[in-house]
């Protein structure tokens, strides 16, 4: 059943993306969907379809792991973790979303933002 991306996601998280029935509740619950290029339900769909383009979407970096979608997904498949898995796939290829050396106003930012960003947005 698994192939390509869905296999990788399964290996990383143990989640079977084919359980998703595309109800869209995750995207409807997502506080950041406005800023995303691909809504969370579509990300899951693209993993089902083994569409590697999803790895280039901004969404996988914008998702804040707030777990709103996770709490509400009626299929209990944890979209936040799927998105995080895609991010980890990119990170393990050496692709990071921010260059920590180029952050502006570094002194003003709270450390939790920096550490969270360094762990979520870089490898």
């Amino acid at each position: 059943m698994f192939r390509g991306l869905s296999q990788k996601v399964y290996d990383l998280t143990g989640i079977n993306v084919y359980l998703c029935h595309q109800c869209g509740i995750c995207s409807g619950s997502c506080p950041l969907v406005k800023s995303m290029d691909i809504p969370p339900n579509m990300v899951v769909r693209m993993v089902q379809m083994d569409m590697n383009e999803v790895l280039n979407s901004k969404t996988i970096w914008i998702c804040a792991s707030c777990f709103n979608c996770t709490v509400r997904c009626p299929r209990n498949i944890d979209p936040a973790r799927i998105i995080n898995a895609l991010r980890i796939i990119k990170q393990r290829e050496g692709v990071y979303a921010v260059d920590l050396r180029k952050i502006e106003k570094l002194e003003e930012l709270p450390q939790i933002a920096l550490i969270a960003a360094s762990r979520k947005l870089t490898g």
Partner: protein
Amino acid sequence: MYFPGCALKSTAEDYEKTAIAVAEKLGVELLELERWNCCGVVFNVAADAVMHHIAAVRDLIRAQEMGRKLNDNRLVTICSMCYSTLKRVNQIVKDDPEKLRNINEFMDEEEDYEGNIEVIHLLQVFKDLVGYDKIKEKVSRRMEKIKAAPFYGCALLRPKEVSIDDPEDPKIMEELIEALGAEAVKFPYEIKCCSSYNVIYDRKITEETAAEIQRAAERWGANIIVTTCPLCHYNLNTSKRKNGIPTIYFTELMAYAFGLEETLSPETLKIFNKILEEI
């Protein structure tokens, strides 16, 4: 004993100061862990991410060492993100003996973690150990002009295995605000996310999210937002709106209600004075 974490020692100093002061007033002594390191802030979801749990487990070992002396296994967290990370890692290693064994073996310079520390949040201490009746007794100031909207954000409530309350309809802060004699303004965005580390990825996203949350709280009649998280605190205060309502820590609200002004920063005092003047 309590785990301070990085934010409380720097950008959120006021949070720590007021937390310790109000706890003391309520007869709870918060003892700082003798040694600690960063918890890691975010939980890594990959099943094979053992490395990413090490920092948190190290803190749990510190708590285990100190807990033995104090004969107490409760580790109180104040920052929401520390709460979430320590709680989740704690749960994972408790549920997965093999993982715990791996981690223990990897950290052979430390004693083994036995998995018996209980991670709780300060709000739970106030609700369950102290009780809101006792909190009511300590209030020495009239608070009814303060209309406080509780903002929970994500880390305290989700995922639901580590939630301190109902993840969709939390009441814990609302009840606390009411116990303090202020008006609690429940608003529809109370469980929204502040956009977290997007402040680093794309600041605009955070500014917009913050403005949206502020606007909603105002529309529901709040004149202040109360949070538990140093990152929500920072992010919500980045909103560029003119005269947007301010965001403070719940412990600052408590300190004010208890008449502990000396623990508040001048900026926070200004916020309270402004609210009282305006009405």
